[in-house]
């Protein structure tokens, strides 16, 4: 058992600090938005969580490519760690966006390109998790996971383009499909500062969580090996 590295402990504190500062900025520093009122504050963490989500899926696709070329287990652990964190954060982004949309668009959900793509992305990576659960052999599980992470990541832009094409040809039915049209706003400089600070804080949070999750994955891998050895 490797003891917790000192750098990680430091990163934990930095992350907690940044997160608290981000929360304070969102609630007390950022001004009240003139049209939407308080609910606009959801926007800062909504975009940040979505950003962490996409970042994790990118990391997983890259880890997948590296795993397939090098075949080292650690890259599989990185891939699954990134996808797990991203699934959670992307879910948060979808739910918080939905709560924001209720008073602004007057509906919890519209079949807008971004929303629909987000839902499909979430389903792709849920399928990734189910695929992994269905395979016992660690080596095969890692290979299949890497392949599916790459395929999933590549399909996302095509899905987005095709749904966007569908919605621009189709009339928009409920609440304005385009978020910049209904519920868009100009950000004042304080809002911009809060926004970028939230993005930064969440990026650091992502790195911190990823590190922890990789450590957990490594430990789980060791336990699995010990279990195999004991069975033999």
């Amino acid at each position, binding site marked *: 058992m490797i003891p917790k590295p000192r750098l990680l402990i430091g990163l934990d504190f930095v992350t907690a600090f940044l997160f608290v500062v981000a929360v304070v900025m969102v609630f007390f520093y950022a001004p009240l938005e003139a049209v939407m009122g308080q609910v606009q504050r959801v926007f800062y963490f909504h975009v940040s969580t979505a950003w962490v989500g996409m970042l994790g899926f990118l990391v997983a696709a890259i880890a997948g490519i590296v795993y397939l070329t090098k075949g080292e287990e650690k890259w599989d652990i990185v891939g699954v760690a990134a996808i797990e964190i991203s699934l959670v954060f992307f879910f948060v982004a979808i739910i918080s966006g939905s709560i924001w949309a209720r008073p602004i668009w007057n509906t919890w959900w519209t079949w807008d390109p971004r929303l629909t793509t987000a839902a499909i992305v979430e389903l792709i990576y849920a*399928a990734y998790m*189910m695929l992994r659960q*269905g395979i016992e052999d660690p080596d095969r599980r890692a290979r299949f996971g890497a392949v599916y992470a790459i395929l999933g990541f*590549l399909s996302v832009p095509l899905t987005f383009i095709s749904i966007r094409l569908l919605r621009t*040809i189709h009339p928009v039915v409920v609440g304005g499909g385009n978020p910049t049209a209904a519920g868009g706003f100009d950000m004042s400089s304080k809002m911009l500062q809060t926004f970028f600070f939230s993005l930064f804080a969440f990026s650091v949070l992502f790195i911190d969580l990823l590190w922890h999750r990789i450590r957990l994955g490594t430990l789980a891998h060791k336990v699995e090996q010990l279990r195999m050895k004991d069975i033999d």
Partner: protein
Amino acid sequence: MSDNLRDSYQVTNPRPLTNFFHAVWAVVWKDISAELRSRELISAMFVFSLLVILIFNFALELDARARENVTAGVIWVTFAFAGTLGLNRSMSMEKDRGCLDGLLLAPVDRSAIYFGKAIGNLIFMFLVEIIVLPIYTVLYNVNLFVPGLIITIILGSLGYVAVGTLLSTMAIQARTRDILLPILLFPLVIPVLLAAVKASSGFLQGVSYDEISPWLNILIVYDVIFTAIAYMVFDYVVEE
């Protein structure tokens, strides 16, 4: 002696490209001849397609006006479901009878197996489509024999099978193999299904080509990208 030498020379150093096509063809032919003997895959896919169309008839109240709008959707959902059935069956047959291991032992490029299986699946899918289209035409009095629609169906089936063959190879090696394929496949083929439905309904309603061409472009781009990726990663999916 010299004959022997020449033979062994030809075995160890064959013309690679012809050899590749021979191998692909051998896999395709193996699937076709097995199917000619049992006919279980095509008949299952066909009956299943008919059932899906019938269920849609009750579920959607397919009157004359509704048909105009939903025909493209109905036929693509039917193809997608029947396709999953075929893909799953064609691969699990290999696995159950140990054919996959045999294929992998054969001294050919692994991607030849992928292309062989994919072409086989594509042929079965085309066969089902060729049977289902006239039946749909007769049952619902909608003319489906529009050249553009045929092209759309070819492009859509290509993309569907390119990804489907790869994923079914993965799915059958998992513990949860019976339920896994649709869960893995459907979220990835949404661009294909969406573009195919839109292009099909465009052709059926006689929309101008300018409005349809973006959908066809998406289909072509998807087909090219995913066939290439599947070709590149297939090795990792069958490695033992």
